């Protein structure tokens, strides 16, 4: 309550204290004058109009008013003292410290805190900035009060040997949807989904979104085993609900999950009180210390500040395709471990939720609230209208029907081991087979145990504290304990991801990458010998990395993403058996055979087929002359590099294994490939830029064409040739860059293949004066080629213009004179341009020579 008060920065220092009005131990009131001081200042006096002014020093006396109520304890200043800057002036025992405030009122003294006056520098509202109560936004407390409350909480928890557990609702312990289909299924015992939805609870909310979704029913499915889980966990943890749903929703769900209010009590916080629509924060509930708080949530990205305390659970997805009905505000999730289609019944096609997952980047600025609200409403309305579950079931029924028909024929009926029921049997869409909570319970128990072990150890190591007393000093941080526990889970694993993290996303910063790392596994970007697991998306199991990994097959486990998800939920290296990608052994055999075949034929192309990534193989397939290089080919080079060794991207090109193997065949036999093959990887952006550049400067080019049109018919052909060259240029731009890599590659790679070296040598000899030598010349050639293309286009335009002009001349004789004038002007300009262009022409000639040279080279390599 005793507070030292400063003079404040608003005084005109230096000041001299002249009189103290109050004695220590006297009561003081706000805005009451406490002492008098004087300060000197200069004033300009005299006649400003005539300019006869001078400075005059003046002394002014002023009173200093009290910023707070209470009792004066002591002065820190004395009469006659000269003060140069802001400093302490007195100690006051305040009558009220305004530690708890409600709606701008001090909850202790009842004074209005919003009042602003001259005496105080800061508002009293700022004394209690912390909002730490679950169900109120208007109640704020000061730091000391928060500290006090939290200490009391920690003591109490320690006494009961408990921790705090913040529980998310949606998709963590329950799954909610508002699809009315569920209600219909519940009433219809003949429906295949009846047993699954029988124990789905529901409630009606009228404060929901307007329109169709108003007053709709919410269907809540509890995660299997939830009741037991919560009962057991609540002996070790004090439970809090923290959801992004509305207050009413949260309370209704809490009522379903915990009808007696024994588990959660009133510790429920929703988005209405959260104060932030996009992120959750432990500091909202535990502003001082989060040392004893654990979170379970299905989304890690909404806890940006509290990752260490978070146990991420796999999302509970009971109502297939619905997702989280309250996630409309949250940024779209990226890089999720979506379960493979195989786990849903009968390879059922997943109906994608309405918004595409990568529609907007999660790092972009947050959408305005209004918009988010609207979007949320729209998605909810859509759910009610579209009835995604019904659609799913219909789809399932159709599949079942087909299967039924198929099994009706005798030969199929025998092969199928599953019981072929005589009547048409419908499969259910909704499966209730989630086991996450059992694992979660184990983890939480283990965490609780190791926390209190650490706590006891800390306490013993501190001799000062008596063993019986509860010691808040020796509380270990549960976040770091959790981190160490987790990091043991997958330690020793070296994991490569393929096809799981979207292209262009840093694997190491992606959600999955962070998780892999947090479980102690080593995340690798490329497949090497010591990698233990390759995780592949089961939707696209034939990526480049798989091909690379096949060679190490018995040692490296190629598994689908469900394995990773299982590891994440079980916190151990799960038996890989059920998750292995099938059919890879065959591929390996095939590959080996191919290699042997290739070795037998000893063609250039398969020399390095086993060890080089496809980026390098492509050269051999393209077989086009490596003579031209775009100055902007750097981007292509980057791409190639990515392909070969960096781990930036994980979604490899979607080439099929077979296709690849086919491509390994010596291409020499079928001669040249299509010239547009290389264009697939060609960077058109750079070409366009170059073109634009030429068009800008190229007005003279146009004119030249116009001029020379009459006398030179053969130029057309030339142009055509040049055009072809442009394509060739594009064709080879990738080639060249990858060539360089090949040339540089042997030093990087383990040179285990003699043949490869041989092939390299051979290639070098084919190239002749290596690409680096060629590069300068090639640039010129390239320029020339492009300009030729431009010229051709311009020519066509000019011809059209001429035609129009001629017609105009016929039609309007009045305009004729003008036209002539213009033509004359044009011609003059053209002549001048032409003269100026002379030098350039010379260059062009040289360029053509080079071109010829290049062609020669190309020809050689092609023949070879």
């Amino acid at each position: 309550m005793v507070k030292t008060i400063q003079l404040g920065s608003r005084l005109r220092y230096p000041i001299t204290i002249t009189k103290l009005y109050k004695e220590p131990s006297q009561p003081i009131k706000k805005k009451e004058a406490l002492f008098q001081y004087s300060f000197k200042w200069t004033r300009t006096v005299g006649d400003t109009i005539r300019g006869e002014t001078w400075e005059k020093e003046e002394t002014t006396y002023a009173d200093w008013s009290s910023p707070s109520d209470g009792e004066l304890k002591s002065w820190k200043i004395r009469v006659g003292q000269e003060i140069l800057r802001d400093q302490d002036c007195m100690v006051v025992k305040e009558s009220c410290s305004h530690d708890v405030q409600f709606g701008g009122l001090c909850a202790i003294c009842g004074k209005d805190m919003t009042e602003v006056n001259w005496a105080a520098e800061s508002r009293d509202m700022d004394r209690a900035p912390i909002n730490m109560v679950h169900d109120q936004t208007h109640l704020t407390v000061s730091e000391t009060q928060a500290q006090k409350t939290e200490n009391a909480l920690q003591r109490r928890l320690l006494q009961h040997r408990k921790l705090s557990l913040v529980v998310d609702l949606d998709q963590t312990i329950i799954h909610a949807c508002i699809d009315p289909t569920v209600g219909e299924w519940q009433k219809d015992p003949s429906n295949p989904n009846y047993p699954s939805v029988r124990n789905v609870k529901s409630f009606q909310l009228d404060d929901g979104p307007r329109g169709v979704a108003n007053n709709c029913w919410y269907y809540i499915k509890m995660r299997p085993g939830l009741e037991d889980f919560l009962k057991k966990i609540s002996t070790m943890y004090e439970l809090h609900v923290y959801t992004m749903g509305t207050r009413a929703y949260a309370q209704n769900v809490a009522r379903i999950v915990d009808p007696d209010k024994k588990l959660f009590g009133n510790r429920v916080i929703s988005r209405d009180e959260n104060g932030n629509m996009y992120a959750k924060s432990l500091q909202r509930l535990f502003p001082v210390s989060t040392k004893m708080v654990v979170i379970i949530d299905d989304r890690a990205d909404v806890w940006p500040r509290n990752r260490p305390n978070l146990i991420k659970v796999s999302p509970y997805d009971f109502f297939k395709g619905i997702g989280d009905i309250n996630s409309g505000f949250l940024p779209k999730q990226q890089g999720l471990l979506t379960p493979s289609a195989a786990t849903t019944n009968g390879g059922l096609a997943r109906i994608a939720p309405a918004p595409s997952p990568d529609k907007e980047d999660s790092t972009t600025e947050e959408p305005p609230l209004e918009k988010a609200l609207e979007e949320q409403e729209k998605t909810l309305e859509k759910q009610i209208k579209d009835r995604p579950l019904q659609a799913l079931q219909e789809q399932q029924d159709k599949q079942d029907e087909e299967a039924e028909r198929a099994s009706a024929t005798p030969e199929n009926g025998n092969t199928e081991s599953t019981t072929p029921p005589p009547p048409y049997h419908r499969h259910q869409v909704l499966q209730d087979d989630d086991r996450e909570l059992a694992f979660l319970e184990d983890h939480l128990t283990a965490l609780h145990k190791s926390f209190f072990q650490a706590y006891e150890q800390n306490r013993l190591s501190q001799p000062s504290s008596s063993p019986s007393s509860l010691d808040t000093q020796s509380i270990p941080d549960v976040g770091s304990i959790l981190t160490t526990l987790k990091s043991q889970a997958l330690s020793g694993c070296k994991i490569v991801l393929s096809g799981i993290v979207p292209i262009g996303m840093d694997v190491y910063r992606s959600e999955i990458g962070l998780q892999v790392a947090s479980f102690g596994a080593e995340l690798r970007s490329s497949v090497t010998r010591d990698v233990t697991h390759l995780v592949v998306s089961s939707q696209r199991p034939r990526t480049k990395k798989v091909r690379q990994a096949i060679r190490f097959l018995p040692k490296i486990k190629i598994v689908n993403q469900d394995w990773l998800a299982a590891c994440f939920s079980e916190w151990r290296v799960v038996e890989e058996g059920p998750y292995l990608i099938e059919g890879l052994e065959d591929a390996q055999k095939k590959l080996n055979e191919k290699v042997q075949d290739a070795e037998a034929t000893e063609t250039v192309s398969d020399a390095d087929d086993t060890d080089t990534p496809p980026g390098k193989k492509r050269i051999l397939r393209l077989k086009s002359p490596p003579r031209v290089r775009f100055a902007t080919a750097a981007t292509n080079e980057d791409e190639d590099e990515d392909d070969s060794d960096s781990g930036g991207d994980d979604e490899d090109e979607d080439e099929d294994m077979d296709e690849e193997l086919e491509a390994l065949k010596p291409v020499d036999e079928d001669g040249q490939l299509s010239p547009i093959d290389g264009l697939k990887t060609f960077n058109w952006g750079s070409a366009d830029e170059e073109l634009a550049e030429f068009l800008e400067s190229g007005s003279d080019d146009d004119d030249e064409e116009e001029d020379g049109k009459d006398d030179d018919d053969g130029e057309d052909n030339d142009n055509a040739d040049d055009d072809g060259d442009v394509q060739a240029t594009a064709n080879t731009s990738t080639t060249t860059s990858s060539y360089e890599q090949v040339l540089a590659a042997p030093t990087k790679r383990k040179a285990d293949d003699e043949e490869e070296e041989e092939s390299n040598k051979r290639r070098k000899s084919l190239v002749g004066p290596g690409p680096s030598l060629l590069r300068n010349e090639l640039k010129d050639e390239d320029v020339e080629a492009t300009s030729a293309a431009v010229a051709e286009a311009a020519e066509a335009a000019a011809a059209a213009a001429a035609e129009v002009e001629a017609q105009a001349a016929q039609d309007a004789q009045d305009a004729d004179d003008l036209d002539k004038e213009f033509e004359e002007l044009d011609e003059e300009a053209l002549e001048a341009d032409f003269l100026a262009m002379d030098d350039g022409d010379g260059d062009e000639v040289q360029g053509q020579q080079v071109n010829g040279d290049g062609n020669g080279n190309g020809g050689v390599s092609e023949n070879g």
Partner: protein
Amino acid sequence: MFFLHNLERRVTLHPSYFGRNMHELVTTKLVKDVEGTCAGDYYIIAIMDAFDVSEGRILPGNGLAEFTVKYRAVVWRPFKGEVVDAIVFSINPHGFFCQAGPLSIFVSSHLMPEEIHFDPNATPPQFTNNADMVIEPGTHVRVKIGGLRTELGEMYAIGSINGDFLGCLQA
């Protein structure tokens, strides 16, 4: 404290309601609009009667008729120092919230008798003196208003149960 207060309000009526029972409609609309709202530093609890409904004036532009209605209403203006009965609806370590009609009052733990403390282990959490006094959601309490603040359409109040005859009401 309750007052009978003479008030005035302008009520607009849509043209589709123009007819013989217009004044009745105006009164109904007035009741619907006004009853139970917070008008500055008092709540309008109930409208006794509308004793003067002026002639309607058509508003230019939209055709609505505007009536100036003078009415008598029972209003409640809470005062600092007033003692009110309220029902507890929310409890947290810092104090509890209770509702006296339309007004929600916060009673801080500082403004409770010494012997009353927060018991978070009870379900639901409660303030108690480990004897006859148990304050949990639903409890009827008698509080003394210690401070008031009005915002647009909203009122905040601070209460105290530290005093004679304040606190739990034995039902």
